[in-house]
């Protein structure tokens, strides 16, 4: 699998997903203040609303990916402890989690890429 060793449910502070969630959260407050400072254009307000929506989407995606990873982890530990012998369900769950994770990484890469594109812009 492409996913490295997952932190256990208890060790939440180690979770890399929470960093991305923080990032997404940081996007949200900038939207209303940006719209408030310029205060004028309708387009800016609409952009702010869109940005808030996008951060919501990202947040939701991260939560969902995390849920998938947790359920894959539960499934895997069930197989390892001998509680169930559904090896295929464990592999399917972890491959689903892997795909969801790569989708999230892809979205994040696009986000960073567009940010860098804007930073390179000549003014």
């Amino acid at each position, binding site marked *: 699998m492409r996913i490295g060793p997952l932190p256990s449910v208890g060790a939440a502070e180690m979770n890399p997903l929470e960093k991305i969630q923080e990032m997404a959260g940081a996007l949200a407050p900038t939207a209303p203040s940006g719209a408030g400072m310029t205060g004028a254009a309708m387009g800016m307000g609409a952009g702010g609303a869109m940005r808030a929506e996008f951060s919501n989407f990202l947040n939701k*995606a991260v939560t*969902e990916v995390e849920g998938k990873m947790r359920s894959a982890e539960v499934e895997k530990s069930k197989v390892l402890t001998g509680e169930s*012998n*559904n090896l*295929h*369900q464990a592999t*399917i769950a972890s*491959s*689903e989690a892997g*795909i*969801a994770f*790569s*989708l999230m990484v*892809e979205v994040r*890469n*696009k986000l960073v890429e567009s940010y860098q594109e804007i930073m390179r812009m000549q003014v």
Partner: protein
Amino acid sequence: MNFVTGIHATSSALTAEQMRLDIVAQNIANAYTTKDADGNPYQRRTLSFETFLGGVNGAEKGVRVASMAKDKSLGEQVYNPGHPHADPQGMVRLPNVQLATEMVDLMSASRAYEANLSVARNSRSLATKALSIGK
């Protein structure tokens, strides 16, 4: 969000086929069991499958084991007076398990399992390929 389409149906089919393999194993293991819990020779078990709705918002048709039945046909009778389960005439009733039939069942179940694995592998690689659009 469901990225790997049809995976719940495939997963349920894998579970069902695994059950079928277990039943074949049980039949082969008891091919010479002349006395089971209720005193009769072992009767081979057979499974029947049925469709059920499951997966994300219950839209995927999966498969599950509907029932397990005993094959009621009588097994072969052999003359073996020294056998502890022989009747007064010295005849022993063997289980109705035919090893050839069980092997064929085993092969078809394991091929069906492989087919479902290929479906899972294929839909996973489709999802991965779709992700590479963005690269």
